[in-house]
């Protein structure tokens, strides 16, 4: 966790310094705001990971001498097959096309998206099957 924390914090600090330099030198608002947001993108997850890194012993993947057996046990439930990402994709495309060809497409698209939301929740409860 310590390496990951370091990467985020280095990036965030770098952007923060650049933000200050850019603001003081140019005084331009748009770029300053975007750079500041980029600094936040580094610092926020960095601090979250720093918080955890202090409270956790190093994970097997953080220790150079870890054996493979230490990583055994469930890694997570990986669904093998599911149709719902496809349905969601079609729904999102219809909703997007409604910006071009009219709201009626959004009605169809949001229907697809809602059905995905419902079915993915049910799928997770049943255990990831199609």
């Amino acid at each position, binding site marked *: 966790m310590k390496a990951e924390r370091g990467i985020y914090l280095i990036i965030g600090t770098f*952007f923060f310094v650049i933000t200050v330099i850019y603001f003081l030198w140019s005084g331009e608002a748009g770029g300053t705001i975007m750079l500041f947001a980029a600094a936040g993108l580094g610092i926020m997850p960095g601090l979250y990971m720093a918080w955890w890194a202090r409270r956790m012993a190093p994970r097997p993947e953080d220790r150079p001498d870890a054996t493979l057996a230490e990583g055994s046990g469930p890694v997570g439930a990986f*669904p093998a097959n599911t149709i719902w*990402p496809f349905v969601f994709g079609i729904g999102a495309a219809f909703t997007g096309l409604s910006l071009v060809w009219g709201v009626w497409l959004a009605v169809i698209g949001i229907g697809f998206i809602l059905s995905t939301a419902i079915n993915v929740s049910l799928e997770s409860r049943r255990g990831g099957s199609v």
Partner: protein
Amino acid sequence: MTILEEQLESHPEGQAHHDEPRGLYLWLTSTDHKIIGKNYMYTSLVFFIIAGAMAMLIRTQLFSPNNHFVSPQTYNELFTIHGSMMLYLFAGPFAFGGFANYILPLQIGAPDMAFPRLNALSYWLYVTGGITMLLGFFTASGAAAFGWVAYAPLSSATNSPGAGPDLWIVSIMLVGFSGIFTAVNLVTTTFYLRAPGMTMFRLPIFVWNMFVTGLLILIAFPVLTAALIMLYVDRHFGAHVFSVAGGGIPVLWQNLFWFFGHPEVYILALPFFGMVTEIVPVFSRKPVFGYKGLVFATLAIAGLSTGVWAHHMFTTGTVLLPFFSAMSLLIAVPTGIKIFTWIGTMWKGQVEFRSPMLFVVGFIFVFTMGGITGVLLAAPPIDFATHDTYFVVAHFHQVLFGTAVFAGFGGFYYWYPKMTGRMFRENLAKLHFWVTFIGFNVTFLPQYLLGLKGMPRRIAEYLPADHYTTLNRISTIGAYITGAAFIIWMANMWISWRKPIKASDNPWDGHTLEWATTSPPSHHNFEKLPPIRSQRPVWDMNHPEYADWANPDGHDSSQPEKVGER
């Protein structure tokens, strides 16, 4: 060694191996990172062929002065969609959708990506986004015709009416969300699904580069999506964010777009740098030279690339020239470090010029040339003279074609045996390289000269009196040669498919974990893993006498055992 068996138990009953759907239904429903990665790769190659065909049309139009092969409006549509497809639909998704999806979990010893369903969703958003972009050609007013950068005020509702520009906006939004979801997946997978012993500083450089690409996507793409929403609101709801008439600022679009656009260039480049860094050590029979230097160069590129956006806007007169010029010149330093480490890896190695290595050497040649002209363009006085000329066109084609095609096809040939379990025909692959390399240089080196003679980009016609004819003819012939090269590639793939030669699990004597599994890998990737004690676990397993961990300056093998609660 038992890790994977136990991982398989965590899968819900009865779906891992039996009831596996086949054919089209598998393609629609799979959440396996390997199938999604292959889908990404095939889809992006289809878009590459379509956009490449558009390039042929563009070059045909420019073959002669006062040519009327296509109308000026069609020409504008062609270069817009050619650029948009190559950048949004080919180069990026080919790398961070295709290669990263397929290779990254294998290289870190993971069973899948962290969010398999999100992964599938990002593929479908990408496909629908790509189709949406192409739909523009079937509308009455034609596709978007304002260049892939869509500068205001050209992109306003008055100057670019019709459905085509709107379809372009929607398409980029969908593809943008797809990219963001993939980035979330890549970063999370790298942080949380590594095999035991695979510390951050043992990750293959390809994984490092994909992870940093993910961070850059998270910085850049949301800005673009926000800008596109503003553009849409301007076009349809009468807002005036980008129009002077209502008190808006047209240059704001350029600021927002390039804040995305410049990191995007590195989003396209970094994954391919990663592939190069995988291929060079394997075919030089040496570990990578300067591992930590490469990692920090990658992070430095990520940081600096976010601070250089306005070097695309030097001629607007509204940007802080010294800041952006200095940052743009600085970014050449980490990029130079990378080129130096690749050459350092080859230095005194046993270099074997198999086809992946040939493509990579071609990449280093072409990319270095494009990079050096990039340093020239970072100096405002030179940029003022060459802005919006063919000099810039030649520069970015050398950079982007160099990465996405030379390095990309190097990676494609390198991992093709792993992905399909079949070998390609080496002679045809070498022919593909040489024809591409010659065709590419014949196409783009004359364009530098055209740019220095003053030929502006994005013009459909020029006059005989401009004296651009000869160089344009050479360039067009080069483009046809490059096009022919891809027919050789397709023939190679066809032969390999119809008359397969079985590939072994580790045909190149590779170094990283993907070569420890079967070709193609089984459903959850690994039956067994070698112990991970260095940056090259598979090399260590196959060559224990030269193992990296036996190396006296190895930093990790002599560490005392640390015991901690999990």
